[in-house]
C-alpha cells in the first residue's frame, strides 16, 4: 500500500514538474529580452522554488540540489546583484535540460539515476560571484560542460484531465442510444422515400458512427501503463540473479481498454520474470554458448484486425523439450507412450498443464511458484490466447492475442422459444445443420442425447428445455446445432434458428439477477430490445453436463497410425452402477479382490477393509454415480463384494466396489467422446459399446475429498 501511494505521488509530482519546466524554459528565453525579464524572472524563481519544494516530499536529493542551485542564481538576478549574460542563460537552460533528464529517469525507473550533476551545480554556484577572473574561468568550463551533456529529447507532458470511468460508461450508454435512434430513423427513411430526409439520415449516420468510435477510444489506454515498470523489474531481477539483461520495447503506445490492461498486468509481469529467471542464462553460460553476455528481453505490441498482439521473448536457453516430457511423466501428467508420440508444439504446451513447473526450486523472484497454467487461465478469462515459440539454445517467445476491449465481443445470435439469445464467439466451435434423415445419428447414451460428430460423441442440450419454454417445438424437420466449448469440455446446443454473428456491447444483469448463472449478461440488439447473453459454462451446469474432459494432449493432426499406436491401452472392464459399461486403465488397477461384506468396518462416514496388512478405504461407485444406489454395505445380509484396488499415486490406495468385473481388453481407443458426467475422464467405444472410462481422482474427490488431502499433507 505504501508503495502504491508513493507511485501515485511520483506520478502527480511528474505531471506538475513537467508543467513547471515548460514554463521555466519559456521564461528563461524571455530573460534575454530587457522589456519583460523582470516579470519572467519572478515567475521562473517561483516555478523552480515550487519544484524544489516538491522534491522534499520525495527521495530525490540530486534534483533538489540542482533546483536549489538554480534558485540561488535566480535570486541573485532578481535582487540585481548580477547582470544577465549569455553564459547565465546557457547555464539556466542546461539546468532545465538536466532536470528534464532526471524527471525522465524518474518516470521510467522511479529513481533519479546514476548521472553526476556536480559540475553543473559548481558552475551555477560560481556564477553567483562576481569578478573578471571568475567570468573568464567560467567561460572555459562552459565548453567542457557543453561537451559533457548529450542532447535530451523534449519530453513534454500532453495536456489532459482526469475523467471518472463511470462517467465514460454513461457517455458510452448514451451514444449507444443515439445509434439505436439512428437505426430507427434509417428504417423510416426507407419508408418515406424522401431524398432530403434520406440525405439527412445519411449525414446523421456518419456523425453517429464517428461519435461512437471516438467515445469508445476514451476508454483506451496505452500499454506503456504496464510496461513502464518493466525496466525497473528487469534491472532488479537481473541484479539479484547475477545476470545482465537489457529490455527493448516496441509499440508501447498501443492502446487497449482500461479493463483489459488491468487484466493482463499480472500475466505480463509473470512472463517477464519468467524470461529473466528461467530463460536468460548467466553471463558465463552465455559466453560459452557464443552469445553476448548481455541478455535481450523484448516486448512488442501491435494492433491487428481488431485484436492486440503482444509478444514477450528472450534470447535465452529456450525450452528443453526432452526435459519437459520427462518431468511431465514424473508428475503423472502424461504417459510414456503419449510423451513419445508428441509433436514439438504439444511438448511445449506441457508447461501450461496444472501442477507443472520446470523450476528446480521455487525462487522468491518468481513468486510462490505460480504456474503457467494461471497465466494462461487469466489470459483466457478475457477471451485471449497464448502460444509459445521456443528454440532450444536460441530463446523463447510468448505470443498473446487479446481483444481490444471487454465491452464489445462478437457473438452468435440464436433463437429459442421466439426469443433471441447471444452466444459469445469465444465459446463457439462450429455450427451443424441436421436434415430430417440425419437426425437418426442422435442416440441416447445413459439418458443423455449424444451426436456423433466425426467420430466424437458430443452431448446435446436442448435450449428450449433448459430455458423451460412452454411452446418448445420437438418435431423440427431441420435441427440446428451450435457446438460450444467451455474449459475442457464441449457439447452441442440445439436451438430453433441460427441467425448471424454480431458485435454486441456486454452489460451486467444487476443485483436482482445475480443468482442466475445461466446468463453472463445482457445486450441491446439492433432493434432496441434486450437480448440475454448465454453463459456457456453456467448452461452446462444447469443442464447437467458438467464433467471436465481430461486434457487433450494429442493434436488432431496426429496421423491415424500414431494415434492408433498411442491410444492402444489395456482396459479393465466392469459393470458399474445400473450395469453401465465402465473401464479403467489396467496400469492403475493394482489388484482385484473378492471380500466378504462382513469384513468391512465403518469409521465415521468412511468404510474400510483390512487388506494385506493395510487399511483400505472403500468407495461405492453406486453412491458416486447413481441416485438409486443399492446398499451393499448397509445390508445385513452377508455377501461377496467385487473390489478393484486402485492406486492413483504411491501414497494412496482405495478399493472400488463394482457390480461385476467383466473382462480385460487391449484396444485402440480410436473413437473417443467427451466426458458424460462428473467422475468420468472420457467415453470410448470398446467392443462396439460405449464405455465410460473413470477419472479415479475425480471419483475419490466426489466420494470423500479428505482421502486426497491426507496424501497432500503426507
Amino acid at each position, binding site marked *: 500500500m505504501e508503495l502504491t501511494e508513493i507511485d501515485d505521488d511520483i506520478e502527480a509530482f511528474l505531471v506538475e514538474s513537467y508543467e513547471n519546466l515548460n514554463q521555466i524554459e519559456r521564461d528563461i528565453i524571455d530573460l534575454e529580452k530587457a522589456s519583460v525579464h523582470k516579470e519572467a524572472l519572478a515567475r521562473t524563481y517561483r516555478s523552480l522554488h515550487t519544484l524544489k519544494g516538491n522534491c522534499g516530499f520525495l527521495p530525490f536529493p540530486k534534483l533538489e540540489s540542482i533546483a536549489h542551485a538554480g534558485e540561488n542564481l535566480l535570486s541573485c538576478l532578481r535582487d540585481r546583484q548580477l547582470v544577465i549574460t549569455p553564459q547565465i542563460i546557457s547555464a539556466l537552460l542546461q539546468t532545465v535540460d538536466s532536470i528534464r533528464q532526471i524527471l525522465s529517469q524518474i518516470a521510467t525507473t522511479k529513481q533519479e539515476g546514476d548521472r553526476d550533476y556536480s559540475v553543473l551545480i559548481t558552475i551555477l554556484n560560481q556564477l553567483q560571484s562576481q569578478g573578471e577572473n571568475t567570468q573568464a574561468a567560467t567561460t572555459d568550463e562552459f565548453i567542457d560542460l557543453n561537451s559533457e551533456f548529450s542532447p535530451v529529447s523534449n519530453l513534454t507532458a500532453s495536456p489532459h484531465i482526469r475523467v471518472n470511468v463511470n462517467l465514460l460508461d454513461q457517455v458510452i*450508454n*448514451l*451514444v*449507444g*442510444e443515439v445509434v*439505436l435512434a439512428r437505426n430507427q430513423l434509417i428504417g423510416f427513411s426507407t419508408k418515406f422515400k424522401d431524398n432530403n430526409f434520406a440525405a439527412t439520415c445519411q449525414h446523421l449516420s456518419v456523425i453517429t458512427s464517428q461519435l461512437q468510435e471516438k467515445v469508445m477510444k476514451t476508454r483506451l489506454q496505452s500499454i506503456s501503463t504496464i510496461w513502464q515498470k518493466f525496466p525497473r523489474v528487469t534491472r532488479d531481477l537481473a541484479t539479484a540473479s547475477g545476470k545482465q539483461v537489457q529490455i527493448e520495447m516496441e509499440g508501447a503506445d498501443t492502446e487497449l481498454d482500461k479493463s483489459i490492461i488491468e487484466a493482463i498486468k499480472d500475466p505480463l509481469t509473470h512472463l517477464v520474470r519468467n524470461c529473466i529467471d528461467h530463460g536468460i542464462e548467466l553471463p558465463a553460460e552465455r559466453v560459452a554458448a557464443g552469445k553476448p553476455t548481455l541478455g535481450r528481453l523484448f516486448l512488442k505490441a501491435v494492433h491487428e484486425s481488431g485484436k492486440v498482439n503482444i509478444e514477450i521473448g528472450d534470447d535465452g536457453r529456450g525450452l528443453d523439450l526432452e526435459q519437459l516430457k520427462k518431468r511431465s511423466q514424473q508428475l503423472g501428467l502424461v504417459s510414456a507412450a503419449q510423451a513419445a508420440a508428441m509433436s514439438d508444439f504439444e511438448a511445449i504446451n506441457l508447461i501450461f498443464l496444472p501442477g507443472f513447473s520446470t523450476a528446480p526450486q521455487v525462487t522468491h523472484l518468481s513468486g510462490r511458484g505460480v504456474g503457467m497454467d494461471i497465466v494462461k487461465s487469466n489470459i483466457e478469462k478475457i477471451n485471449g490466447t497464448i502460444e509459445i515459440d521456443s528454440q532450444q539454445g536460441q530463446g523463447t517467445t510468448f505470443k498473446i492475442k487479446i481483444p481490444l476491449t471487454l465491452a464489445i465481443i462478437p457473438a452468435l445470435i440464436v433463437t429459442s422459444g421466439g*426469443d433471441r439469445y447471444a452466444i459469445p464467439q469465444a465459446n463457439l466451435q462450429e455450427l451443424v445443420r441436421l436434415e430430417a434423415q440425419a437426425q437418426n445419428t442422435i442416440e441416447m447414451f445413459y439418458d443423455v442425447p449424444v451426436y456423433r460428430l466425426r467420430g466424437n460423441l458430443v452431448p446435446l442440450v436442448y435450449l428450449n428445455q*433448459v*430455458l*423451460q*419454454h412452454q411452446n418448445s417445438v420437438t418435431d423440427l424437420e431441420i435441427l440446428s446445432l451450435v457446438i460450444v466449448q467451455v474449459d475442457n469440455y464441449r457439447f452441442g446446443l440445439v436451438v430453433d434458428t441460427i441467425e448471424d454473428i454480431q458485435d454486441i456491447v456486454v*452489460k451486467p*444483469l*444487476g*443485483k*436482482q*439477477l*445475480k*443468482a*442466475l448463472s*445461466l*446468463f453472463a449478461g*445482457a*445486450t*441491446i440488439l439492433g432493434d*432496441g*430490445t*434486450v*437480448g*440475454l447473453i448465454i453463459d456457456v459454462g453456467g448452461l452446462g451446469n*444447469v443442464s447437467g453436463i458438467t464433467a471436465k474432459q481430461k486434457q487433450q494432449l494429442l493434436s488432431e493432426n496426429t496421423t491415424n497410425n500414431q494415434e492408433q499406436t498411442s491410444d492402444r491401452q489395456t482396459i479393465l472392464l466392469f459393470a458399474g452402477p445400473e450395469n453401465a459399461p465402465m473401464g479403467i486403465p489396467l496400469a492403475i488397477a493394482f489388484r482385484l479382490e473378492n471380500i466378504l461384506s462382513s469384513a468391512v468396518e465403518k469409521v465415521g462416514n468412511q468404510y474400510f477393509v483390512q487388506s494385506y496388512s493395510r487399511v483400505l478405504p472403500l468407495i461405492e461407485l453406486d453412491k458416486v454415480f447413481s441416485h438409486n444406489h443399492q446398499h451393499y454395505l448397509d445390508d445385513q445380509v452377508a455377501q461377496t463384494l467385487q473390489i478393484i484396488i486402485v492406486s492413483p499415486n504411491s501414497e494412496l490406495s482405495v478399493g472400488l466396489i463394482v457390480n461385476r468385473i467383466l473382462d480385460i481388453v487391449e484396444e485402440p481407443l480410436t473413437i473417443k467422446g467427451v466426458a458424460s458426467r462428473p467422475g468420468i475422464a472420457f467415453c470410448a467405444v470398446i467392443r462396439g459399446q460405449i464405455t465410460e472410462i473413470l477419472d479415479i481422482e475425480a471419483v475419490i474427490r466426489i466420494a470423500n475429498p479428505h482421502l486426497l488431502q491426507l496424501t497432500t499433507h503426507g
Partner: protein
Amino acid sequence: MVEQQICTFFLKEVYFGIDVQHVQEVIRPQAITHIPLAPSDICGLINLRGQIIAVIDLQARLKMSEPQTQLTTKPVDQPEGFNMIVCADDEVVSLLVDQVGDVLQFPQNTLQPPPATLKGRMRQMLAGAYPLSDGFLLVLDPKKTLNVNLTE
C-alpha cells in the same frame, strides 16, 4: 417542520408511496425481454436509453398477488401499468405498478408504523404509513424493497 414528498401509486387499489428522492422517472409500459429461470417476481429487462434495467413485479415482490393470480392470467410480454424507475443503493430498477398517483407532501413526524393488520413480506418492506382521511398511505422502504436477500 420537516416534510417528506411522496410519489404515490396504486397496486390493486391499495395506496402506496415512495420518497421522491428515490424516484428517477415514471414511464409507459416498455417492451420487456423475458428472462428464463429468473425469480418469479422479475418480469424481465427493458432498455432505458441504453441502460438495461430489471423490471420487478411489485405485486409479486410484496406477495400481494396470490389470490388473484389464479383468476387472471396476463401475458408477460405485454404488461399493463407503469414503470416506476427507482434508485437505491447505487442500483436502478423499474417497479411495475398499476397506476401512478399524485406527489403528496406530509410532515415527517406524522409517519406511523404500518397498520397491525399487515403481515409478512409487505410489512418488512414498508418504512411506515401516513394517515389519510379515508385510510393509510403505505410508504415503501426502497432499500428493503430492492434487497434480494430479504427472507420472510
